[in-house]
């Protein structure tokens, strides 16, 4: 499949059409993350219009989007940018392109669900810090949380943990 066809397929899956966007910039104006992104949602749509799939997949835009839907809600033409971003992320992962920190977090998150059936923000944050090698991030909050028993160091897995792990396994297999 050519790059062009792949892009079109992603657009179709996301139900987004290139030329619905007339580059008004309202989306980027309201996007809370656009300051930090390589380019905001408007830029992303421009890349899609000029067929620059590579730039989309290699940008940090697709990983920094919080999925807040501010852009779609305000777009005069209902262009569903976060849906396109989601498809772009899947395609990037299929090609092995990743943003290191996001990848570490997402994998830690899912393995924690696999092991416990549930997730605990602070355990997740702790494991993330270990794997991402950011030992001090947010650790200043830990004493308060321990004192007020906001985090429970003894995690109890749910009864259906193995059921949940199997469910994730089946779902992952379905994708392949």
């Amino acid at each position: 499949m050519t790059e062009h066809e792949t892009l079109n397929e992603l657009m179709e899956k996301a139900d987004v059409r290139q030329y619905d966007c007339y580059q008004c910039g309202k989306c980027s104006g309201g996007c809370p993350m656009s300051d930090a992104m390589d380019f905001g949602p408007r830029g992303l749509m421009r890349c899609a219009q000029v067929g620059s799939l590579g730039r989309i997949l290699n940008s940090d835009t697709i990983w920094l989007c919080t999925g807040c839907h501010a852009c779609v809600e305000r777009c005069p033409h209902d262009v569903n940018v976060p849906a396109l971003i989601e498809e772009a992320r899947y395609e990037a992962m299929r090609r092995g392109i990743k943003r290191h920190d996001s990848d570490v977090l997402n994998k830690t998150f899912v393995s924690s669900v696999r092991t416990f059936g549930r997730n605990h923000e602070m355990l997740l944050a702790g494991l993330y810090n270990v794997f991402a090698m950011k030992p001090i991030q947010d650790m200043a909050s830990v004493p308060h949380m321990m004192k007020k028993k906001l985090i429970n160091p003894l995690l109890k897995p749910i009864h259906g943990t193995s059921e949940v792990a199997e469910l994730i396994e089946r779902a992952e297999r379905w994708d392949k």
Partner: protein
Amino acid sequence: MKRYAYFPGCASESTAKSTTLANEFVFGALGIDLIEIEDWNCCGATSAHTLSDTVGLALPARPLAQAEEEWPDLDIVTGCASCYARLKVTNHRVRTDKEARFIVEKVLGKPYEAKREVLNFLDILSGEDERKAVENALLRRFKNLKVACYYGCLNVRPAELTGVEDRENPQAMDELAALTGAEPVDWGFKSECCGAAHQNDAAFETRPLAARIIENARACGADIILTACPMCQLNLEMRQSEYIRKREDKLRGKPSFPLFSMVLPPDPNETIPVLSITELLAIAMGAGGRRLELDAHFVPVGNVISKAFRDENESEVFI
């Protein structure tokens, strides 16, 4: 008595302790029965659906299908905006997209039709009967308490799913807060994203999001921020001392020591307490600070609240 199948969400077991206590108190006082979905699992927000669409659908579908099997005529309710979004999207996709339903049922290994609605607490409490019940349950009221109601992105958007009418200026929480005598302020960040989804993996990039919300609430004269999501709650609270110290250091031209600045207690003149809407309601319904474990908040709330009772004697009873 109204009944709902209840999905507490992972935060209810840890960081959202006082909110969870308040939820129990409020729904108990209103005579609304929240039946916890047995052995519920994490809905996967927000990592699972980033990694895989199918896993993102399968995780929320398990508790949803379980609720449907056990209580086919109960709507599902959750107190967390992230869970709400994931459960709602799954429900919606199973209903409207045949392929999605086929995949979900196949992976789950049991039928799931998405017959009932997924709701959040604001949806429930703003019903007409419920609002009357809230009014009747109030034991004390506030005066001169200005509140900035922060809905968060996922309680409001996408509006086609959430059914929120005024998407740039939602009203449900403002109306509930006003019942207690608190005065909702007009401000600009009601449904702007706080960045909680990336607070680990893009910590540096998401700090300004929480900072802007806090600054705008203070600039608009609010005494406290009200939330309807434990993720927003934690994010807005934890970031406060940190970013304010950093800004101060910058103003004074000093180098910033993030770790050191985080250990210092937040300065009450620079911070704004953050409470959940159910905590505010619970306090107005007579719950004490100790009962709700309000001291678990990162930013102290006791003082602001105890000064704001209409009847001054109440301040002594509180805490």
